[in-house]
C-alpha cells in the first residue's frame, strides 16, 4: 500500500502505518489526516509532536493511557481530536508504528 502525497510516495504496511518512520514529513501527516477526515489544528500538532518525541525516546509508540497521563490531555478530548481509537490514529498520522499495547 502507498499514499499519494504532495511530493512523494511513501510505503505503508498492510495496516496503513508508515513502514519507515524516518520518511515522515508534516505533509505526510496532513495527507494521512485528510484520509481520516481530520483537519489538523495546533492542538492536534501538539499531540503529534509528543507522539513522535515519545517514539524517538522509547523506540515505541505511546498507548492511549500513556498519552493522556504524560501529556495531561483528557481522554475525552483525545477522542474528539482523533475519533475512534485515538492512540492508533495519532500514531498513524505521526508516522510511527501501531502502539504495542495492542498485542
Amino acid at each position, binding site marked *: 500500500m502507498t499514499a499519494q502525497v504532495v511530493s512523494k510516495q511513501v510505503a505503508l504496511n498492510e495496516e496503513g502505518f508508515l513502514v519507515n518512520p524516518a520518511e515522515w514529513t508534516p505533509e505526510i501527516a496532513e495527507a494521512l489526516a485528510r484520509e481520516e477526515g481530520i483537519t489538523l489544528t495546533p492542538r492536534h500538532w501538539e499531540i503529534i509532536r509528543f507522539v513522535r518525541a515519545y517514539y524517538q525516546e522509547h523506540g515505541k509508540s505511546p498507548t492511549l*493511557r*500513556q498519552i493522556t*497521563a504524560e501529556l495531561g490531555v483528557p481522554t475525552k478530548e483525545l477522542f474528539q481530536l482523533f475519533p475512534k481509537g485515538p492512540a492508533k490514529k495519532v500514531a498513524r498520522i505521526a508516522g510511527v508504528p501501531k502502539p504495542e*499495547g495492542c*498485542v
Partner: protein
Amino acid sequence: MKRVIILGGGTAGTMVANRLARELAPDVWRITLVDESKVHYYQPGFLFIPFGLYKARDVVRPRRDLLDPRVEVIFSPVEVIEPDRNRVRLQQGQRWLPYDFLIIATGVRLFPQETPGLMGEAWQRSIFDFYTLEGAQALGRTLARWEGGHLVINIVDMPIKCPVAPLEFAFLAEWFFTQRGIREKVKITLATPLSGAFTKPRASEVLGSLLAERGIEVVPDFYVEAVDPDRRVLRSFDEQEIPFDLLVTVPLHKGDAVIARSGIGDGLNYVPTDKHTLKAKHFDNIFVLGDATDLPTSKAGSVAHFQVEVFVPNFLRYIEGLELLPTFDGHANCYIETGYGKAALIDFNYEVEPLPGMYPLPGLGPFPLLRESRVNHWGKLLFRWVYWHVLLKGKELPLPAQMSLAGKWLNGAGGR
C-alpha cells in the same frame, strides 16, 4: 552461598523455580520463591467454569505441591523491592531478604474499580467477570438459569491476559445457549477497543468471519468510559452507548502494586524488560518473566513457558560470566475454543503474525493453524493435564521454544 529470589509462584515463577532447582548446584545456590497465596490457579480453565464444563477442583492445586522440594517457599506478600540495595521486604515479619539475582514473576492484577459503574450494586448480579475464579463461578450460577436478552462482552483496555479468551467466551456462550435451546432469545455482542476481533490482521480476519457466522456482533474501537448499572448501558469516550442485560467485562489489567511502590514500572506497572534477553532494562541482576513484563507479545502461559525455556540456559551462561544471548523471539501459541467441540490454534512471535499451516510438525500437525478443528479442541482440553504434570514441573516438552516458519503457509494460498 548465593541466592536467587523468585517473586510470584504462578505459571512463570513455578516453572523457573523447578528448572533452576535442577540446574543450580545446591551447595552454592539457595533458591527462594515468595508468593502471597497458597493456591495455584490454572487460569485458562476459568473460561470453562461459567458453562459448567469445569469445576473449581479442576483449576486449583496447593502451590507447595507443585514446587520442587529444593525450593524454599515463603508465603507472604512482597512489600517492596530495593534494587540498589539488592533486597526485598516481605510483609510477614517486615523481613528483608537479600538476593544476588532477582526474578520478578508477579503477573498482572485486575482493576474493575477503575471503570466507573462496574463495581456497584450490579456487580455479580448483572455485571460479571470470568478472569477470576469467584467471578467465573458467580457467572456460571447466573448463566445456568438466564432466560435470554442482550449479552455484552467488553474488553476495557489492552493489554489483557490471553487476548483470545474474550472471543472464546463469546463462541462458547453461543454454543451454550444453543444447547440450552434459548439461542434465539439471546443477542451476543463483543465490544472491543481493538479495530477488529484480534490484535493481528490475518487472525483478526479469520476470527472475525467465524464470529459473524455464529451471529456474534463485534463493535470495534469501543473504549468504555463508564457503565450505567441502572440504565444498563455501556458508554464510550466518544458517546456511543451499548445497552445490555448481562455484561461480562474484562477489566483493566495492570502489574502488581509492588512494582509501582518500588518505582521500577511504567504507567501500567509493567517492568521495562529487554525484548530478547528478559533482563530488566535498568538492572543487571533482575530478570522479568511472564505477564509482569512490558514486552509486545501476548500475556499468556504459553509465552511464559517459551520464556523460561530460553531464559534458563541463558541464566546459566550469565552466572558463569558470559554475555546473555538474544534468544527470546516473542513466541506465543494459543488454542482458541470456538464451541461445538472445536477449536482453532494460532502460533506467532514479535515479527510474524499468526499464519495458516500445521503445528508442530510441518505438513503433519496434528494441529491445523488458524482453522477450526476437533483435534485442536482435544489439544486445548489435554492442555490442562500437560500444565499440571509437564509444564509446571519444568519438564521438557517436545516443542521448540522459538517460533518456526516450517509448516506455515506464508502467502496464505493453501490456507483458506
